[in-house]
């Protein structure tokens, strides 16, 4: 018996969280089903690159079943999925993406509220996705935090809060607009991920790269429409559940590899890379207001157990041997 499934993504397959669906999930699903002697087969229809739906609608597209399986950007769903945004409100916790993805896949199993958030959107998370740690790319050299005073730094969404206390002005934008905004001087710098910034040639217009390490981020994941899921026989469900974990690992490894390549390539292509001095980084961290506390208060007012998640998340990080640079769960 064959099942017709659509796999979709709102962005180009050159991005790891989309590309791994194409290179791993689609071919492996049928290979593993066949290897296990299953009589079920999937007939895939691929729709990547935003031709089926745009990034603003990645959650809804899976919810309504426009695509059966798709990458969902939870980072854009601050209203519907606040819990899945926790890392954006806890900067400077860890730069280890693989650890983070594994941790969130586990948390989705141990903390019912997390899985429930996806069910409420008529879908199921198969595997978490994320991005490498955030750094600073600027049109001017940065040695101390004071260099940022009054500068316009591109930091859309929750990342704007990471600039609080630095004296920089947060400016709105997106990966596709950064180059123009920086080259024309609308902005003087950007808080961004190297793996994403390199293909967009951001280092050409913002050649001063300061390795800050604001943290890797959990940004959503591979999700499947709940009705589609319930229609699938148990062996296909098991294959997808297993593929979900593999998706996370392969995606994480791809991002890390891209990060390393980008870091080497930008230097070869003339960008200046320096690591922010420890005491300056400490100043930045200490200057931040209680971002996590504000987020917990706002999310709990709307009935989401954000405080419980924050404590579970920070505990899980420490359990894995990482000492967060700021203890967001122990607000002074």
């Amino acid at each position, binding site marked *: 018996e064959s099942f017709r499934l659509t796999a979709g993504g709102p962005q180009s397959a050159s991005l790891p969280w989309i590309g791994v669906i194409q290179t791993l999930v689609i071919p492996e699903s049928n290979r593993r089903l066949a290897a296990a002697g299953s009589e079920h087969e999937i007939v895939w229809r691929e729709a990547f690159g935003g031709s089926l739906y745009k990034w603003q609608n990645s959650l809804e*597209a899976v919810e309504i079943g426009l695509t059966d399986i798709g990458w969902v950007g939870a980072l854009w769903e601050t*209203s519907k999925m606040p819990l899945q945004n926790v890392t954006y409100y806890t900067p400077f916790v860890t730069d280890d993406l693989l650890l983070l993805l594994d941790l969130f896949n586990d948390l989705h199993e141990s903390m019912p509220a997390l899985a429930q958030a996806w069910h409420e959107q008529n879908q199921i998370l198969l595997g978490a996705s994320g991005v490498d740690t955030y750094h600073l790319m600027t049109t001017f050299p940065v040695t101390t935090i004071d260099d940022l005073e009054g500068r316009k730094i591109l930091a859309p969404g929750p990342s704007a809060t990471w600039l609080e206390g630095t004296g920089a002005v947060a400016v709105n934008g997106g990966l596709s607009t950064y180059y123009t905004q920086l080259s024309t001087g609308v902005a003087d710098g950007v808080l961004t991920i190297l793996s994403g910034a390199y293909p967009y040639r951001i280092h050409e217009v913002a050649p001063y790269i300061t390795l800050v390490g604001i943290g890797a981020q959990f940004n959503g994941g591979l999700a499947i429409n709940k009705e589609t899921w319930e229609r699938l026989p148990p062996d296909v469900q098991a294959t997808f559940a297993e593929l979900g974990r593999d998706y996370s690992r392969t995606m994480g490894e791809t991002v890390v590899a891209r990060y390393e390549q980008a870091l080497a390539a930008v230097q070869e292509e003339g960008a200046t890379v320096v690591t922010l001095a420890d005491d300056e980084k400490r100043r930045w961290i200490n200057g931040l207001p209680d971002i996590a506390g504000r987020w917990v208060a706002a999310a709990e007012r709307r009935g989401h157990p954000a405080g419980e998640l924050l404590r579970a998340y920070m505990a899980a990080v420490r359990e894995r041997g990482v000492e967060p640079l700021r203890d967001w769960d122990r607000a002074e």
Partner: protein
Amino acid sequence: MDRTTPTPAPQTRVEDVFAALIRWMNGAGVAWIFALMFLICADIAGRTLFARPIQAVPEIVAFSLVGCVFLQLAYAVQTHRLTHADVLLDYIRQRRPVAGLALQVAAAGMGCFVLSVIAIGAAPDFWRAFRTSEFTGVEGIYTLPIAPIKFVVVLGAVIAAVESLRQFLRRSASPAVPGQSARVLLAAIVLLGLLSLATALMQAAELGDQVIGVLTIVTVLVLIAFGVPIAVALLLIGYAGLALLKRDFGIATDTLSLAAQGTVAEYVFATVPLFVLMGLFVSVSEIGRDSFRAAQQVFGRIRGGLGVATVAANAVFAAITGISIASAAIFAKIAVPEMVARGYTARFAVGLTAGSSVLGMLIPPSLLLIIYGVIAEVSIGALFIAAILPGIILAAALAIGVLLMAWLWPEFVGEISADAGDGDSATVRGFLWAVFPVLLLILLVLGGIYGGIFTPTEAGAAGALAAMCLALIKRRLSWPGLWDVIRETGQVTVTILFLIISASTFSRMLTLTGLPADMAGYLGGSGLGLAGFLAGYLLLLIVLGTVLDSTSILLILLPLALPVVGELGGNLIWFGIVTVIGVEIGLLTPPLGLSVYVIKSTLDDDTISLGAIFSGAFPFVLITLAVTVLLMAFPSLSLIFL
């Protein structure tokens, strides 16, 4: 049924109130667009002067566009502004009035259906957003509630659906076919029944996805040819195709609602109202005409010089407008009367005006290049720079074409005297004074973009505000004049954005058929090579350009073409330039040529027929085509400054 009076029954009291509601909603949408201009300018000023950007502006503007479209949609339906091709429809109406009217009534029925589907899909969505206090933005920075916009979508879709229903029931009673309204209505219902039956049969037949894809394309072309508003045809067939492909009407309904709310909720689409607004302010302030007259005094002494002046003035105006229809509207008012007064034939004058309006979207800033940049994920700034030389080449080719035709083909161009100057010999000072305001606008817009004050998207707002100030300084803007300008802006906006929404729905459905991906695979794997692919692509652009608007073609074709170009090693910036100029040929070709339609409606002169404008523009279609081939053959012409 009244067999004695051929006139339609007078409007009832309910209908009067309903019409007032539609007008009121339209006014609110119009005012909202005007307010967006000030909001964006406030953000620019805040960021530049006080280092205090208004963080939420991009999202406010994006969601406002959706609200504006749905507030004004019913008015556009009521005033028949939704773009439709009426060549075949006019013919049928003359030969078989009953059949012609039945087609129009059936089209109103289709409009009622798709608008109801949008409302049905959006209503639960609104209710959930309201119940859960859904917002956009980030708590602690800014949040905007979503429910009000979703409410406007539902309200707008319902009111527009009711207006379509009113037309469906009312239009059959037309003085053109006295006493036959029952026959008309019956014929329309039979037509709609046949369409539903065809869909049901196709569903039962379990057709392959690609077959469904081909059938939907053919059906859309047929519906458009028979005068169904293009947006309605695309939405209706997109919906039917989605239902067939997904074997689920619920998903199709939700997708229509998603497309209606999501497609134009992007900051870049604000360029549509803003550049239209700017163009209309330039028109009412008459600074466009002043600089045109100045150019005429420079070029007027040569045979065909006034034609060259039209091309030159269009090229200059193109540097401050993002859309060709703004150029067409302005120069129809300015250049055509001047040329006709000096002995040019009306056919040549309107044809040249249509032909040179193409420059408006090739020379930056350009809405089409922005849309291309967003779809292809390439730098819009690089596209703008790449378009400069091709724009100059096209302008030069048009000018040379005018001079050659004036010399070799006087029966087409007209009996023009070489000495066209009318005595008030231009002093250098007079010339500068006349062109100064336009130069100021160009400097402001281009300087602002390349000097880092604002983005190409924001440039429309800054340009519109500046053009409005110029019009006020020149005392050429009254209160009623201002209202006319922004109301016209609103109607152009809703027409274009609703078209984009419907084209997006259709192309989403087409993506699901796999047809574009398979065609791209076929073209890529056929070993045609880049040259062969380009030839096929240009042909496709021209064919689609006869019936579709430029934006829809880009949205449908690019996801198909871009991977192939990448695979064949073509540069995506260069491909953007040849795509935009190729797609703009469609502005001039029948049955749907938007520039030609704009000139026709702006001139409002019964002696100049649509056919005359299309045939007058034809030589310029050939010139544009030749330049397109030249740019395709020599990518370095587009990439020289990069």
